[in-house]
């Protein structure tokens, strides 16, 4: 018979033995975790539908590895897609409606675009007053190499009629209840742009199911929702599509709203390109720091524009100094940046980052409020206690 103390010591010994043989699951009371194959260390905002956010510490890689790339699903993922039997139909305002297979797409001239994909609602959790939706903080964004044929090459096969002004994507998301299907459209000019793709690969490997296997649209520089996953149908339209995910969903007011004011759908437009934005990825928010030199780092992006400057303030926004931009860059990709902070006095500091883009847009101190929290881009900040 064992006493309670003996029992505890046996359990601890067993735990140590099991741990040393790698038998224990990665769980502790402090760090609960959920097994999601292919997704590593992500913040689980929802497991059904799957919505995963990249933690700030993963912003240190120019190319985001697939297991760290955020996942935003509006509904259930298709349960039965098979790459062999999958077909993509192209119709509407075209001369010759067509159907293509995955093999057809892979046989067309491939193009690769390194693109920073960001969910329109990234940063929504920081909006005041609070707004509904997945409460993304910093990490509903990632940067990857997307490859596949140009959308325009596929559209040319069918021949777009002069009446075709918009291109509609229909995703094969499985729709629960009476939720409208995931259908959105982009203007023909963006659809025919040389960088707009039907992507079948991400970082050189076939798209995973969470990222839209077998094919997704890739509309560079625009909100993630434009890059429709699990494509089933492409339709050329005379007018902008006006279903739920275009109207009233994914719309911005034409004029700034007073925080809390409702959106007048008739005085709004659909969200397209991303804002200028930077985030600090140094993971020591609220931490104690003992070093006199600290590396502050992060990422900055601007949708269809280029990042030209990232500045850092370590005195709560009174003075700013230029950060060093990373060497790796591409038209639609984020720039990593870093700044060596030399600190000489103990105290509590507010560290901020502010990006400027090639169109002269500068990250604001306060983001414009809207009822869905789209395109949040306020100057990022973290607070630290320095003890030297």
């Amino acid at each position, binding site marked *: 018979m064992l006493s309670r103390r003996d029992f505890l010591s046996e359990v601890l010994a067993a735990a140590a033995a099991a741990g040393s043989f790698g038998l224990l699951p990665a769980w502790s009371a402090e760090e*609960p975790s959920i097994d999601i194959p292919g997704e590593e260390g992500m913040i689980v905002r*929802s497991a059904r539908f799957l919505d995963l956010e990249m933690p700030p510490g993963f912003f240190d890689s120019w190319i985001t590895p697939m297991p760290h790339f955020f996942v935003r699903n509006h509904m259930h993922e298709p349960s039965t897609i098979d790459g062999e039997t999958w077909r993509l139909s192209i119709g509407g305002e075209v001369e010759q409606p067509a159907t293509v297979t995955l093999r057809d797409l892979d046989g067309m001239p491939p193009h690769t675009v390194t693109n920073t994909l960001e969910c329109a609602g990234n940063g929504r959790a920081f909006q005041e007053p609070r707004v509904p939706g997945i409460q993304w903080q910093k990490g509903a964004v990632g940067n990857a190499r997307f490859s596949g044929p140009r959308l325009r090459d596929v559209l040319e096969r069918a021949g777009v009629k002069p009446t075709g002004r918009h291109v509609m994507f229909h995703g094969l998301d499985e729709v629960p209840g009476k939720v409208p299907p995931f259908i959105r459209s982009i203007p023909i000019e963006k659809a025919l742009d040389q960088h707009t793709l039907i992507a079948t690969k991400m970082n050189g490997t076939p798209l995973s199911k969470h990222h839209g296997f077998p094919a997704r649209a890739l509309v560079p520089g625009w909100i993630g929702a434009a890059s429709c996953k699990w494509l089933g149908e492409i339709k050329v339209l005379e007018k902008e599509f006006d279903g739920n995910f275009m109207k009233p969903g994914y719309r911005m007011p034409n004029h700034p709203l007073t925080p809390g004011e409702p959106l007048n759908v008739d005085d709004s437009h659909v969200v397209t390109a991303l804002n200028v934005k930077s985030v600090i990825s140094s993971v020591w928010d609220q931490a104690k720091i003992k070093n006199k030199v600290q590396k502050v780092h992060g990422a900055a992006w601007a949708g269809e524009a280029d990042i030209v400057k990232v500045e850092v303030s370590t005195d709560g926004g009174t003075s700013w100094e230029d950060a060093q931009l990373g060497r790796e860059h591409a038209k639609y990709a984020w720039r990593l940046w870093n700044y060596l902070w030399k600190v000489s006095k103990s105290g509590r500091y507010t560290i901020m980052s502010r990006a400027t883009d090639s169109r002269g847009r500068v990250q604001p101190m306060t983001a414009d409020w809207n009822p869905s929290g789209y395109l949040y881009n306020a100057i990022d900040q973290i607070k630290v206690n320095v003890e030297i």
Partner: protein
Amino acid sequence: MLKFKTAIDAAAILLLMMTCARLLIAQSPELPSGPMQKKVTTACTECHESRIILQQRLSKATWTKEVDKMIKWGAVVDAQDRDAFIDYLSTHFSPDKPAMEMPRSALQKNKQ
């Protein structure tokens, strides 16, 4: 008094406890207790898990819009329960409540 013949028994119990704990984490957390807990759980989690509700911090006016949108999208809510749904959600998930701690997905190396 607890009885264990060997350390293997203890290890087995420990692994069982940890597996149970993990399954509890993997399952969606329960909505807060209250007269509407069951009905809200049934109506909402038919389509999505509870964390989508648990992370919201909304005013009563915004909850009203959300409940009406979800009813339009197929959430089964008796007409007589609509106001109680809104009261329950706006009481438990109001802007003054602290933010919800979200779990992480497991690290790849632990799955091998």
